[in-house]
């Protein structure tokens, strides 16, 4: 077998694949954050907890109701998105006219409450969630073995990212959203219900987090603190990509996942910090982020 830069290809491609999988979660999660930040101007700290909730709802659907993975992939984001809309209406809306710090603190508090509740009922050891039967097994690509479910995660993430990008950039509804991001008062003066648009947008961003949670359920164990670590990295991803930038979230998410994977190959010691080092550099050189608009 050939070697690249002294690294066996199995290790190299294995880590690139792992990077792409992590990147898939980064991309879908930061996309949700970007959509929410764009219109609502809030940093949704509860995103990690809602991602966890997406995984847990899928687990509950399977365990209590026998609803399989495929249905959960749709139903869980709908349920958690609905919860998100209730959160927006009842808690975030009253803070709308206050400083951003209030909504940040509120969503941070929500994270603690949600995580605490799930820990209380389900402990911290995690619940197993089986990979759906048709997605089990591996494919031999010649240079490496590709687990089918992992490939499925990447494909689903790419589809969801593209669909979201298309919805926002190419449809009428998306143009309402972009216009309301820029000047909500003017949009309401055209007869468009901006508060409803805000609620739906928050619900959609939350549903993206829950979708990522369902995808994660079979690979990571479903556990109440699963959102805590990933959300910190995701915040770094959106700072690098540019707050509120759709493209920044998608490309930044996948790209930084791969960078992280490659760092594991070439300099493993830095693999957990590389994203934060890049974030620091981006903040120094282009504070609005790589794809962000200069303010």
């Amino acid at each position: 077998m050939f070697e690249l830069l002294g690294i066996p290809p199995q290790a190299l491609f294995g880590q690139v694949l792992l990077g792409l999988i992590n990147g898939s979660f980064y991309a879908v999660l930061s996309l949700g954050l970007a959509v929410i930040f764009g219109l609502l101007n809030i940093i949704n700290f509860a995103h990690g907890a809602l991602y966890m909730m997406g995984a847990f709802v899928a687990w509950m659907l399977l365990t209590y109701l026998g609803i399989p993975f495929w249905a959960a992939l749709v139903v869980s984001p709908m349920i958690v998105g609905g919860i998100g809309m209730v959160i927006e209406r009842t808690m975030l809306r009253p803070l709308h006219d206050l400083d951003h710090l209030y909504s940040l603190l509120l969503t941070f508090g929500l994270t603690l409450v949600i995580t605490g509740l799930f820990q209380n009922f389900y402990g911290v050891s995690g619940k197993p969630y089986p990979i759906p039967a048709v997605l089990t097994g591996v494919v031999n690509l010649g240079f490496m073995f590709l687990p089918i479910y992992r490939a499925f995660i990447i494909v689903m993430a790419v589809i969801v990212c593209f669909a979201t990008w298309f919805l926002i950039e190419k449809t009428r509804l998306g143009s309402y959203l972009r216009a309301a991001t820029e000047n909500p008062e003017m949009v309401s003066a055209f007869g468009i219900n901006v508060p409803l648009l805000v609620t739906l947008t928050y619900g959609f961003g939350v549903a993206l987090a829950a979708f990522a949670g369902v995808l994660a359920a079979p690979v990571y164990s479903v556990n109440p603190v699963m959102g805590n670590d990933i959300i910190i990295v995701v915040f770094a991803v959106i700072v690098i990509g540019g707050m509120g930038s759709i493209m920044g979230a998608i490309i930044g998410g996948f790209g930084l996942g791969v960078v992280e994977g490659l760092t594991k190959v070439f300099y493993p010691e830095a693999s957990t910090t590389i994203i934060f080092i890049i974030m620091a550099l981006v903040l120094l050189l282009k504070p609005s982020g790589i794809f962000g608009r200069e303010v």
Partner: protein
Amino acid sequence: MTHTIEHTGPGAPAAQSDTMLEVSGLNGWYGESHVLHDINLRVGSGEVVTLLGRNGAGKTTTLKAIMGLLKTRSGSIRFQGHEVIDTPARSIAKMGVGYVPDDRGIFGSLSVLENLLLPPKVAEGGFDLPDIYELFPNLQERLDSYGNKLSGGEQQMLSIARILRTGARFVLMDEPTEGLAPVIIHQIGHTVRRLKKAGFTILLVEQNFHFARELADRHYIVQEGRIIDEFRNDEVTENLDKIQGYLGI
């Protein structure tokens, strides 16, 4: 008090007009500061009425209050007989009121076509795209450009054009000539005249008195948040000194 008046100005409808908008005892606040004081005005169906006044007189605020964009307001605003003082902007828009704001309100991150198609239709009988391109040929050439790449004149045309598409028959227009070259002002004047002929009702805020004088049926003078005088367009010549005194020109 408001009353129905006979139009004798050029191009004015011959008959007495129905009331489209009636504002009475309108007060408005920006936070703590009281900016509109007992505004009374009336716009008849098919009329072009202007609010004239110096900078900061409260003209724009009056339009915003009518559109439902001023948060704190009291008094009465009746549109086609319906009280709208507590109605949110989006519902007022749906009743057929179009708003062309002083900053033009163009969305920089949307293309010209997206800007044009953004406002939902509120009534039948709006202009379709070919009508709009005929009225504003410049826009057709720039459909794919982003809103923030347009010149001031193009933004102004787009701001008017997108309202015409919606079928709104009552247009609040805030200083459409501000900062524009004479040739563009001429084109906008031509557009307003055409809309008037087509039966649109327009409440126009202007600082450009000469522009207003050529188009309007009636003028209200706004000063320090109050309406202090009112003239029919055919009374303008005999009151020219007085009006120029009010406007400081």
